[in-house]
Every structure is written in C-alpha cells, then in structure tokens.
C-alpha cells in the first residue's frame, strides 16, 4: 500500500506510531503527482519539491498535524507562492501575506503541496473557465470535475493530495466533491475567516474542507475555524471540536426532504440514489418527512443578482495600476483600465461583472438588487421555519453527474443550473455538506447534500459519518482514470 492511498487520520496514526516520516509522506505524494498530474491537470503551482524539503524539518512535538500535506485552492493568499485565481489577471501575482486559514495550517506544521486549479475567480461550475488548464475528473477523464473548486476535488479524488481547502460561493465545494465522489463541506457563513480569500461574492464566500472521508472533514474543519479579528463577518463563539460528532447514530433525528429539489431538472438516477440514501437513514432510526421550500425556485435568480453585484465591485481592484496584469496597449488612464481588464479577465468573469454592474445601476437597483435582498430575507425565514421541525435537510448536491468537457461551457444559462441545489444554502448562510451516495450506470459518482441549522455543523458530520460507516462508498468505489468511452 502506498502512503498516498491513506486518509489524513490514517497518516497521523502511522506518524504517531513512528511507522512513517513526514518526508516519506511528501515523497509519496510527489511521486503520485508526477504520475497523475499530466492527465488530471489539477495544479496551477506545484510545491511538492519544496514540501519534501520542509518535511525534513518538521517538529512533531509541536502538533500532531506537523508534516501532513495539503492542497490549496488558488484563491487563498499564500505568502511567497503565486495566487492566481486561475486568471491571466493574476498570473504572476505573489501575495505579500498569508490568508488566515493558511496561517492556521502553517501554525500546525501542515505543508502545502501546491495551489489548485479553479474556475477563474471561482466563477463557474466545471473548472473549464480556468485561464490556464482544464482539470479532468479522475472517474472519467473526458468529464469535468465540477467547480469552481475542481482542482481541489480532482486532486483529492486522484490522491495527489490527501485533503484540500476549497471555497464555496454557490456550491463550489459541494458540487465538485459530489462529481468527484468525495466529501465537501461549506461551513456556516462566518465560521471560517475569509481574510486572504480573494473575494468573489463577499456575503456568500466561505472556505471549507474537501476530504476523502467524513473524519478528515471534521479534523480539517477543527483546524480552520475560529474567530478572526481581521474578518468582521467572522463569528465570535467558542471553538468546537467537530471530531466529537463522529458518532454512528442518527436515531430520532428528524430529516426534512424539500420536494422542490427532487423535481424537474434533476437527473433520474441522481434522484434514485438520494432516495435510497434517505431510506438508509430511515433504517437507522431517523424520522424522514417530505417538506416544501417554494421560495427555492427563486434562489438561482437571487444568487446571480447578488453574487454578481458584489463581484462587480470586488473585482474593481484589478485595474492594472498596482499589481496584476497591465495592458501594453494604452495611451491614457481610461485605456489602462479598459484594456487591462478586457485582456486580463476571461469571458465568464466579464459576463458577471457586466451583470453585476447592471443590477446596481441607478434605475435598476430597486428592481434587481433590492428585490433580491428582500427575497434573500424570505428565504432565510423559510429555512428557519423548516429548522423548527427538522434537524437537517437532504437534497441532491448536483442535478446531474459529471458531464463531458465542453458540453456546457458555451451555454452560461445551462451552466448556472448546476448550482440549482446548492445556492440556497449560500443565500441563507447555512452549513451544507456533500457526501457520495452511489454511482450511476456509468460508474460516475453521485452526491447528496445535507443542509443544517446555522453553526450546527455537528449534526451534519454526525449524519454523514453514520451513513458513510454504513455504506462504505470509499471502500467499494474507486476512480478509474478511464479515458472517454473506455
């Protein structure tokens, strides 16, 4: 057995028993990256060689995580290593500071194997909108890994990194986790500091774990949570130990299944597997009821209005003045702005900036942005009502399994539908988790989404762990790295 085949908790066990060394771990992953990266294309910047060097000086006395590798989505600032957001705009950008989550990992002696590919500025659901490369899904190399954290999900699924950090604005952790057959958690808004995460939509963005199993998810969540004075939207509550929720028991838990997420637009096989998983919960003693969340039908519209509005403002700083791409073709200031941004941003980013600028414009603000905020409030209230009755909700994570590369990237509206099941969770700021619940007839993984009460990640981890231990998806299904049609 190769070291790269292990989960993080298994690696820690072996490190604790001194059966292996951090250096051996890094070498194993470096070898795996060398082997798999050419066909997966998950990395924007590799730091595995540096990681081997760093692993030689690890202090295992300081932290039990010292010498554990990780992969980082390329929109989290890392001092000294490029942070590109998979954009030409930041192709050579090196941040002068570390994001808060990176500081936390550094403090534990966790070592980065590299920065992972994504849709440009996290805008997209397939990672096809990266300015640099198209990442492949390890389960079928002709399909997308999902997105925008597609590099992170594909790297974890192909075991080039044992776990990774992703970010989720409308589903960008959960959806690629589902499409790659792994575990992804978007924490409650405010649980993890956003300081150093290059902003897409400030009121939705959250950083979260992408892992091989639920136990690793709880461990990584423990490592990145905590109040941060540098982020005014970070919540100031006592830190929790999420590994305490790794309990195999859902007896008496009340589960709501909103019918809106099992209707039109959801693939039949996806529906079927999610319903099977729900049956499994019943067998384990949970109480399941169908429920309704009408307003969810408006969620996509609300999401694209607010997220684009915030993005149009957040991405203004990429103006070619202080850092990032600057056009060579200018005669005056207006040219610098216009040409740097026209040449530096890709089509999807431009589309969203234009959309966001439009909905904030005088004369349109009330009809779009303001109205969307009102619906957002209603959506939050509707979720709150459901949570008076239920401990958590179950929906599919993605309407479909991974699709062929190139089939949707030219049709933005169809691409936006990929977020159908996930955006409501961001709009309401709730925790959402995706775990694998089976494969379709072609062997492609299907994910189900567990949605929890604000700051109740514990229930999600407990429910996910119970299901995982029962069904053992990871033991029964492995990525095949097959080529198209093979």
């Amino acid at each position, binding site marked *: 057995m190769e070291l790269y085949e292990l989960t993080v908790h298994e690696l820690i066990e072996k490190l604790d028993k001194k059966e292996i060394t951090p250096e051996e771990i890094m070498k194993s992953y470096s070898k795996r990256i060398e082997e798999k990266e050419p066909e997966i294309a998950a990395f924007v910047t590799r730091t595995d060689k540096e990681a081997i060097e760093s692993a030689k000086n690890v202090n295992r006395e300081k932290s039990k995580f010292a010498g554990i590798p990780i992969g980082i989505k390329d*929109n*989290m*600032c890392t001092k000294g290593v490029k*942070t590109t*957001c998979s954009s030409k705009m*930041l192709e050579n*950008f090196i*941040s*002068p*500071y570390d*994001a808060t989550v990176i500081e936390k990992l550094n403090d534990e002696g966790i070592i980065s194997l590299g920065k992972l590919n994504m849709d440009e500025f996290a805008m997209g659901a397939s990672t096809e909108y990266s300015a640099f490369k198209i990442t492949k899904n390890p389960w079928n190399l002709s399909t997308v890994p999902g997105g925008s954290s597609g590099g992170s999900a594909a790297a974890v699924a192909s075991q080039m990194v044992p776990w990774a950090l992703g970010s989720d604005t409308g589903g960008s952790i959960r959806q690629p986790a589902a499409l790659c057959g792994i575990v992804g958690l978007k924490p409650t808004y405010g649980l993890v500091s*956003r*300081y*150093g*995460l*290059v*902003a897409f*939509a*400030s*009121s939705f963005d959250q950083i979260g774990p992408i892992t091989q199993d639920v136990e690793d998810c709880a461990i990584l969540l423990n490592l990145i949570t905590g109040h941060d*004075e*540098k*982020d*005014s*939207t970070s919540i100031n509550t006592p830190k929790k130990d999420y590994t305490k929720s790794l309990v195999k028991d859902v007896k008496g838990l009340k589960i709501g299944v909103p019918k809106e997420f099992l209707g039109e637009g959801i693939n039949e096989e996806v529906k079927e597997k999610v319903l099977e998983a729900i049956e499994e919960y019943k067998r384990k003693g949970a109480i399941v009821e169908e429920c309704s969340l009408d307003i969810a039908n408006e969620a996509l519209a609300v999401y694209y209005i607010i997220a684009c*509005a*915030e993005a*149009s*403002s957040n991405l*203004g*700083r*990429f*103006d070619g*003045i*202080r*850092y990032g791409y600057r056009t060579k073709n200018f005669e005056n*200031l207006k040219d610098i*702005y216009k040409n740097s941004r026209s040449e530096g941003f890709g089509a999807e980013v431009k589309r969203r900036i234009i959309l966001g*600028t439009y909905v*904030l*414009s*005088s004369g349109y*603000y009330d009809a779009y*942005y303001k109205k969307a905020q009102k619906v957002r409030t209603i959506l939050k209230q509707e979720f709150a009502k459901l949570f008076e009755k239920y401990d958590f909700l179950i929906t599919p994570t993605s309407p479909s399994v991974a699709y062929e590369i190139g089939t949707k990237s030219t049709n933005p509206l169809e691409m936006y539908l990929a977020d159908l099941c996930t955006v409501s969770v961001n709009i309401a700021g709730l925790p959402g988790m995706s775990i694998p619940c089976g494969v379709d007839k072609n062997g492609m993984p299907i994910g189900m989404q567990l949605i929890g009460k604000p700051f109740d990640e514990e229930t999600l981890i407990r429910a996910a762990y119970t299901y995982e231990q029962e069904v053992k998806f990871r033991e029964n299904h492995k990525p095949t790295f097959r080529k198209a049609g093979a």
Partner: protein
Amino acid sequence: MIRDDYEVVIGLEVHSELSTKTKIFCSCPTEFGGEPNTHCCPICMAMPGTLPVLNKKVVEYAIKAGLATNCTIAKNSKNDRKNYFYPDLPKSYQISQFDMPLCTNGYVEIDTANGPKKIRLVRIHIEEDAGKLNHDEYGSGSLVDLNRAGVPLIEIVSQPDLRSAEEVDLYLKKLKSILEYIEVSDCKMQQGSLRADVNVSVRKKGDEKLGTRTEMKNMNSFRSITRAIEYEVERQIEVLEAGGTIEQETLRWDEVSGKTFSMRDKEDAQDYRYFPEPDLAVINISEEMIEDIRKSLPEMPESRKERYITEFKLPEYDSNILISSKYLSDLFEGATKKCNNPKAVSNWIMTDITKILNEKEQEPNEIPFTAEQLGELVILIDKGTISSSIAKKVLDELFENPRSPEQIIKEKGWIQISDEGAIKEVVQKILEANPNSIADYKAGKDRALGYLVGQAMKETKGKANPQMLNKMFLEELNK
C-alpha cells in the same frame, strides 16, 4: 458687486479628517507626511483577499461631532460602497455611508451682522479618504501615494441655508472651531484635513424654486472659498442676465486666474452604484454609548466666552478672539492658570502673539511653546525680573526655540537691573555725558528726561528697570 435683485444660495459638504491614531479600516498610522507608500499595508493598498475592520474610535469621533452640532444619532447605521475607478482609490470603491448615516438633522449657529443664524445640517457620515496622485513630478507619468488612503473622514452636509460668501466664511470658521474643541480633527487646512465642496446657485429674490447649482470640489482655504463664491455668483448672474442657463456641473477653481472652469463633460455623469458593504457588520449604537460620549464633550466655545467675560472681566471683543480657536483659548487658560493675570495673558495673545503668527503665516495650532511658558513670561514681567521690551525678545525666543523663559533670560543675561547702586552708577554716567540735557531739563524741556532714560536703557541694553531709572533721574535733576 452682487446685484441685490438676486439671492445667493449656498450649501456645503465639508470633509474633515479625523485625528484618530490609526486609519479607519486598518492599523496604519494616520500621520501626515512620510515617504510615499510608507503608511500602508495590504489592507489600505487593497491587496486581493484583504478585508476592512471598522475602527471604533472613528464612530465615536463622528458621534462626538454629531452631538456638538445638535444632530440626532442613529441607533442603526451601516457602511456602503461607492464605486468608481481612479488610481488614488485602490479598491475601486470608497467605503462610505449612503442611506443610513451616523448623524442627521443638526445645526450650527453663526453670528452674522444681522444677529445669530442657524445653518441646518442634513447629515454627518463617516468614510475613508483616498490616496494622492503626484503629477508630473517624475517625468511624464503620475505616481500614486497611498499614505492617505484609509484616513478617516467625516462628511458634514449642510442644507442650502447660506446666503453669502461671508456667511460661508463664518460657518466654516465655526465648524472648524467646534471640531477643534471636541478634539476630533486638527483641521489643518494646508494639509487638507479640512476641505469643502461648495454648491452655489442664484435665484431672483422672491423665487421659490432653487436655481441650478454648480459645485466646486476640494476647496481648502478660506480665502479661495470666498473668492471662488464671489466669482461664481457673478458669473451665474451674468449668464442668466444674458438670457442663458446654468449647467449643473462640477467646476474647478483656479487660484491664479481667479476663475472657475468646467471639470468634466456631462457624458461622464457618474453612477456610483452604492450598495451595502458586505464585508462590514451593521453599526449598532446604544443609548448608553451616546450618553457616555455626550458626557465626555468638553466645554464649548460659547460657555468659555461667558466665563471669560464674567470670571476674568475680559471685554467681549477679546473673549471672542480668544475662543475663535481652541488652541488660543487653551493657551489663554493654561497661561492664566499659571500666572493668575488674565488681562496680561489676553493682551499678549491678542497683540504680540497674533502679530508673530500673521508674520509667519501660521495657525494658532502651530504655536510651538506651552501655555505654562507663556504664564511664566507674564510672571517674570509682573515680578519686575524683566521689562516688557525684554519680554518681547523672550517671546521671539519662545517661537524660535521654545524653553523656559527663566532659562532664556539667564542664558541671554537679560535679567532686569533693579539694584539701586547699579542704577545710580548708570544715571551718574549718563548725566556726566549729557550736560546739555540737564540744561534743557532745567529750562523746562521735560522731553530731556525721556532722552536721558533712553540713553540709560541703551547703556544697559534694555535691562535697567525703567521705573527706577525714571525715579532716580528725577531725583538727581531736581537736586
């Protein structure tokens, strides 16, 4: 001359930099000057991924300003983004306040020739300053200095209640004095820590409807503001009288030509796309916090003036000058406390100190010496240790190289000669050297006495006690 069939209508947006130690959204110093881009960090340079954290002191200072100008303080307030592109604005949006400002509905009272007048305030809100562009200093380009980016500002918006350049001048001076008294801003106009956008329109007297206004931005001297308003009013009346219409536009005042110029064409009408700042929480202000700040407000100028008149028996005119600047007023009170001679301190401030400030073109807050030192100076005069002419020299020294006046006169050997023997010696010497003057005096020419005293002062380099000299000359001459 402004024609009397027109009425002038002016409203002001005053920006004042707050004197908090750190910037509004990061911990960089607000200190003026410094090498370009040395007072900045990833946050105020808008590096990707950075987030603002609101400086609580800024909210406190703004509430102070609101309470001192009779505003209502909002219980719930928030920040908004004002989006526009300019190289001095690193985030491409300014964090400001749009529809929920901290303070609303206040007023400031000014003393016009026709009695007191209330100038109503629409609002006071908090926002961040932009950086600075250094044009043409290094060849053809422009360089960005972000030291000032993120320095906290309050914007004080008045109703269009002002009717002349004189009223604007009074209003601005009053506002400046209030902000100085409550110690929220040092109001150094040359450094741009107090600047105004001036909105001017004119209408025929009796007209209900306001005329179309023009705006002059970022004016930072009282004199230019007055000149600019006078010019702009005349220009507008001329245009209207010639049958033209006023364009609503932003103008630039050119100090050299004494004219206003159009700044940008109308096509460029800005849409700032304000929306709530998602990176910051709403600002909740408790009644308790407002009361605590209210209690912490210092004595305001009006109350000080009353005290100067009743307690120190100063004339109203003198009191008015003293309170016109917090720095003068504090100097007066500090020195008086030390020497217990308010009249003398007031005189020094009103005459010699003001004269020196005018010569140096300095503001009262630039006075380098302490109130204690001024008090000491007055004590030295009162005790007869130095004469008032020496005292003036000491004052010059205090401006040049401030230190204890006692030390100054010791170092310079300026202590007054009050020793009877020494004085007598000088008197004898002068009398012997000037027999003609003695004769003149005896012939009834009293002026001769003055001449002799003058000679004795010259002999002693001004150090002889003049009263004693006078007395002793008289004794000798009348022998």
